[in-house]
């Protein structure tokens, strides 16, 4: 037996265990995609039909026929998530830079106070905020889905992450910029912000994911269906007559795809990002 074969043989139990868990967690994706391509009559066939035959690509088109607003939900999810992500990154980087590199009275005290915001659950602050947004006539707009997440608990996490990064940047760099006559804004925008790329990417990925997945906020704030985001919009495939599973699964595939694409392109950043926040 070659060495290679021996390695495989000795590690068979390891592989068996990993394959078993992988199958378990990947199966829902398989079932979602195959169901999305099945004929309506074959959905609950017994014994189960493992692979769709005939393949019904038109189910994806039917999603948009049954729910003409579906592209709108996709757009609503996309633009709110992009705004939350962009805003969080910019404001968190600005504050993180100030806390790490600028001198001003009570700097560290203010930072510590902001950190406490990370543990305040949205579910608790939602009740008074719902009241105020109702009075300001901001419920049933996208405002509550964009601004509070950007500057709330998620934003505070960003400040923490970016401050950590900027503290690691050698002081010579910003001193040199100062001597060259850069204002703090120029130092930030021209030198520090571009440098923070990797940390910003980690923050952006998590913020986007969180925002795309946000279910509680749209559920309580949004009542007009043209303002729905995807997680809430998916509910519309179930009505009193039951669920059109092949359409719901096709819609779910469409709702999941952007996340999976981002994940597969930025896998390393994702996993390293989690590992880092776990260690620090």
């Amino acid at each position, binding site marked *: 037996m070659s060495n290679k074969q021996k390695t495989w043989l000795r590690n068979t139990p390891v592989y068996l265990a*990993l394959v078993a868990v992988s199958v378990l967690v990947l199966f*829902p994706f398989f079932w979602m995609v195959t169901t999305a391509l099945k004929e309506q009559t074959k959905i609950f066939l017994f014994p189960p039909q493992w692979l769709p035959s005939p393949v019904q690509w038109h189910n994806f088109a039917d999603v948009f026929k049954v729910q003409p607003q579906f592209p709108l939900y996709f757009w609503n999810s996309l633009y709110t998530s992009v705004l939350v992500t962009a805003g969080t990154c910019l404001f968190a980087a600005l504050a993180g830079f100030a806390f790490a590199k600028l001198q001003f009275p009570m700097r560290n005290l203010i930072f510590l106070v902001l950190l406490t915001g990370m*543990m305040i659950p949205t*579910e608790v602050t939602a009740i008074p905020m719902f009241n105020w947004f109702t009075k300001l006539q901001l419920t049933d707009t996208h405002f509550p889905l964009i601004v509070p997440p950007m500057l709330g608990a998620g934003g505070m996490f960003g400040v923490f992450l970016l401050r950590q990064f900027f503290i690691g940047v050698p002081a010579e760099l910003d001193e040199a910029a100062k001597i060259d006559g850069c204002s703090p804004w120029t130092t930030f925008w021209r030198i520090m912000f571009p440098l923070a790329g990797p940390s910003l990417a980690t923050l952006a990925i998590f913020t986007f994911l969180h925002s795309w997945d946000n279910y509680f906020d749209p559920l309580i704030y949004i009542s007009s269906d043209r303002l729905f985001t995807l997680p809430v919009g998916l509910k519309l495939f179930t009505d009193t007559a039951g669920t059109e599973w092949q359409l719901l699964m096709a819609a779910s595939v469409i709702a999941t795809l952007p996340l999976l694409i981002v994940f597969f392109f930025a896998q390393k950043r994702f996993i390293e990002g989690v*590992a880092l926040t776990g260690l620090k």
Partner: protein
Amino acid sequence: MEYADAKPQTDPVRTAVRKPNRLNKHEKWYGYLFISPMVIGYVVFLLIPIAAAFSMSFTNASLLHDSEFIGLANYKKAFTEDPLFWQTVGHTLYFSLGLIPLNLILALGLAVLLNRKLPFIGFFRTAIFTPVVTSIVVWSIVWKYIFATDNGLMNQLLKLVGITGPAWLYNMELAMPVVIVVSVLKNVGLNMVIFLAALQDVPKMYYEAATIDGASKRRTFFSITLPMISPSLFLALILTLIGSLKVFSQIQVMTDGGPGTSTYVLVYYIYQQAFKIFEFGYASAIAFILFFLVLVLTIIQWNLRKRWVHHEQ
């Protein structure tokens, strides 16, 4: 600084030296300006709302009538008059205590398996992490479909071997365990990656020393690996616990609190009281009890983490 200040401003060489000092005076204002969006956000979206929720918990605020101060009545109602509150607390603890050991043990086991140089290891790591980046709503919808009573895949598979499957999500005893398992599969990859990073951080020399001393694999694991990664274990434990106390989406999608009230958890109850029947006062009291639990856990975590960091240095 004094030296530079004493020189006349017209001297071009001195001006170059002075510049940073002049800027230092402005730096303060730049600092406040740069932090102002987050500070305003903190005050408007976190501090004032949490204070408002606290004061609202002492009123009978509701959409139906004006709010009046009623003292501790909401808390008294929760603790002594409302059996559903205690049920809700019980269901939340059931969820947490079911999820945490499953999640942590599976995550640690997988991390240990993945912590070796073998072909395709990277593929398995990515595969098991994938559900973490999937929407919880979509994940719950797919599993709800798999666990459907009459023709769901799970019951069809059981039927193939001659068993009539139960009505999983419509069964008082089974609904919560199903939600727990589905939640574990969704998030186990997160803790797995945290543990994997911790395992890779353990200095190799400890294992070499153990091998020389003839320590068994089991002994090495319990005497070296576990103690070395205990800070990460503890962090994961607390974060998973806090997350599990706030469970909502998968419950709302898969069971909607049912059957009956058998999967009512704290956030679901807050949601139901505040945004279904608009009892803001009572909902605030329950929300504040949740906040208090999270606060205590976070303080424990911060204190113990400080102690560990101290040990490490």
